[in-house]
């Protein structure tokens, strides 16, 4: 066990934080959210130049030799700045799915495209009826003379509107399979909409979309373990964003209480508020501790143990994020609920984090099913 960051990891953290502080001010972000695509392609190119798009990938996967720790470092800092670029959907989720399931050619083409910043990929796995049950795929792929025919409807696909390539999960005779599909393919209909935190999501209708046999990523019928692995990385990435957002909301509120005057004194002199701030710090520190356990769980060789550890992190951290960011709004008073002030936007990210990839009940259920069997 070694809990300090290596010099390289510390440099990565510093690099992301400094760029976000310099180029990712709240007004800049508001402008991005009003743009058609909802994020900055220029910044995305900068992320790639700085190596962030390959930070969590091993060298065999065309990255820079990092892993879950590096991924979480980048995501925590992006959560602090409420970054809206499709890092989570493309670099964390989709790239993990390819790394887990792709053959050598697919990895080289797709992953080097992600790391280089040229290709945006999204995992089009979720269907709104799934509610966190990754096996509940209803989209189908049937085999024709020249390949596969995909039919179905994917929903709330994070990063879907801007993706060049979609990784579509579908039921095939052997089980669940994964296909790479061009976002431009005939029969694909993408409806973009906005998630609560401003990030863009897509409803994707697949109407007899035809792909060749080479579109299959991983074994026919055997893609679910790789998809689950990708979703688990996504959950921990999202929880790292939560820790960054909580920490930022906590200290922003601290500064506000020290300057805002009412009844002739600054708010920090009121013990009722001091104690609520102390509880916010406790939640944040506990979430930060749990994130370390969650990051470690991603490397657990037993998939069931990995999933249980990830579910535990999801419950603990996303609920803490809701508590802390909601308290941050409350302690700010009226300004906290305005669109033009940042604190409410931390809460919005927490709301997304609580629900995305399955809600609290789903993850409690999954954890209980694993954890309680353990002691029987």
């Amino acid at each position, binding site marked *: *066990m*070694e*809990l*300090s*960051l*290596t010099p390289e*990891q510390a440099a990565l953290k510093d690099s992301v934080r400094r760029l976000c502080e310099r180029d990712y001010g709240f007004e800049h972000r508001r402008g991005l959210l009003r743009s058609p695509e909802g994020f900055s392609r220029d910044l995305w190119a900068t992320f790639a130049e700085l190596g962030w798009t390959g930070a969590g990938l091993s060298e065999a996967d065309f990255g820079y030799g990092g892993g879950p*720790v590096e991924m979480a470092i980048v995501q925590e800092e992006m959560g602090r700045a409420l970054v809206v670029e499709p890092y989570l959907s493309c670099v964390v989720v989709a790239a993990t799915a390819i790394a887990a399931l792709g053959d050598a050619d697919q990895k080289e083409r797709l992953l080097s495209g992600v790391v280089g910043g040229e290709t945006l990929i999204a995992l089009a796995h979720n269907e709104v009826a799934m509610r966190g049950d990754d096996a509940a795929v209803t989209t189908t792929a049937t085999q024709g003379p020249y390949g596969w025919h995909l039919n179905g409807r994917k929903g709330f696909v994070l990063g879907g509107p801007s993706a060049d390539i979609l990784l579509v999960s579908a039921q095939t005779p052997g089980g669940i399979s994964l296909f790479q599909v061009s976002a431009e393919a005939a029969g694909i209909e993408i409806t973009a909409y906005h998630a609560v935190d401003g990030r863009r999501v897509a409803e994707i209708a697949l109407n007899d979309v035809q792909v060749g046999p080479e579109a299959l990523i991983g074994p026919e019928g055997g893609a679910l373990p790789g998809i689950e692995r990708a979703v688990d990385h996504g959950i921990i990435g999202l929880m790292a964003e939560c820790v960054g957002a909580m920490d930022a909301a906590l200290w922003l509120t*601290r500064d506000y*209480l*020290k300057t805002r005057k009412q009844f002739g004194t600054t708010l*920090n002199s009121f*013990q009722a*508020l*001091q*104690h609520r*701030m*102390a*509880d916010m*710090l*406790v939640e944040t*520190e*506990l*979430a*930060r*501790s*749990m994130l*370390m*356990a969650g*990051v*470690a769980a991603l*490397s657990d060789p037993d998939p069931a143990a990995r999933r249980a550890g990830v579910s*535990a992190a999801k*419950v*603990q951290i996303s609920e803490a994020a809701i508590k802390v960011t909601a308290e941050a709004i409350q302690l700010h008073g009226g300004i906290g609920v305005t669109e033009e002030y940042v604190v409410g936007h931390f809460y919005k990210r927490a709301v997304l984090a609580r629900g995305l990839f399955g809600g609290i*009940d789903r993850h*409690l*259920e999954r*954890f*209980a099913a694993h*954890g*309680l069997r353990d*002691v*029987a």
Partner: protein
Amino acid sequence: MNFTLAPEDATFQAEMRTLIRDLLPEDIARRGRRGFHATHDDIRDWMRILNARGLAATHWPAEHGGTDWSPLRKHLFQVELRAAGAPVPDQAALELVGPVIYTFGDAAQKARYLPEILNGDTFWCQGFSEPNAGSDLASLKTSAVRHGDHYVVNGQKTWTSEAHKADMMFALVRTDAEARPQAGISFLLIDMKSPGVSVRPIYTINEGLSVNEVFFDDVRVPVENRVGEENRGWGYAKFLLTNERTMSAETPYTAFDLAMVKDLARREIRGGRPVIEDPLFATRLARFEIELMALQAAVYRVLHMAEDDPALNATASVLKLRGSELRQRIADLAIEALGDHGLAVFPDVEGQDNMDVQAPVPPAPDHAAGWLSRAMFRRATTIYGGANEIQRTIVAKSVLGL
């Protein structure tokens, strides 16, 4: 960064697990799994078994009879002690006064008291709180007036854990009434058999005896029993209370409690199936497990922090605040899981700390014994060691700078 236990540490933990299971007598372990305070005899016998192996105070420095294990290994040893159901040792001695003596005591004090503590020969109690000095400890009034080579002590301590069993007390006494409150306090070691010391039990809502009032009426204490300098006792107490707060995370105890709740939830039946198979109960249990995982992760962070790490206080406060609350809530969950069995008073039939009027043994299964007592006594966990409101104020001021 790597949050996984290194293979050599995992091996160490497994070895300690085997060793403790081999050393711990079965009847002591059985009593340890019940929710009552361990008996004086069980604690002493167990201390001597550990001491014979040099394991009585593994968290102390090696030169004073401890070990040179890493903080992580010291913690892992505690985890295995608790998991085995070993009796809780004399914490006042091992966690509190022992470190003060080996850090601030003179050679004679170290030579006399430390071996006695390690061998379970001397039991200790902490004389800090007074009727009007609880969370506001520095307002304590018990006085010690110097007469030649003795102090004469007068006053009253209260909430004194285990005073009725203790051979010695370490006490904060006022040696300068004129100085500002923190500057006139000294740290004395008082023999409980001294003339003028009287102990009155305070029965707590668990129908047991663990805390007492202690009265001092012209008690003569040799000057050689003062630790460190006169009027510098507040500094030694602060050192000790820092230890107490870290200790208060108590996650190994909490883990043991939770394992016991799982066990009883497999035995208790509701609606024709074990309570643990009820999805509503299982999800509540899952929440506790998850929170315990987060606390354990926080413990690992504290264990790996340098003593001057600015984040140390924040994380240690997390442990105290949330750890104490979690222990209360787990005991409450057990009471609920037990149904009617959880509501029946069990006397501590093998114990030495029963109330003067003892309830009869109820017609309920043995796995229910002790839980009501635990749940009642747990109300104290958010009060002792500095009430949680004090902890919140400390966090707000020292960590958040409010």
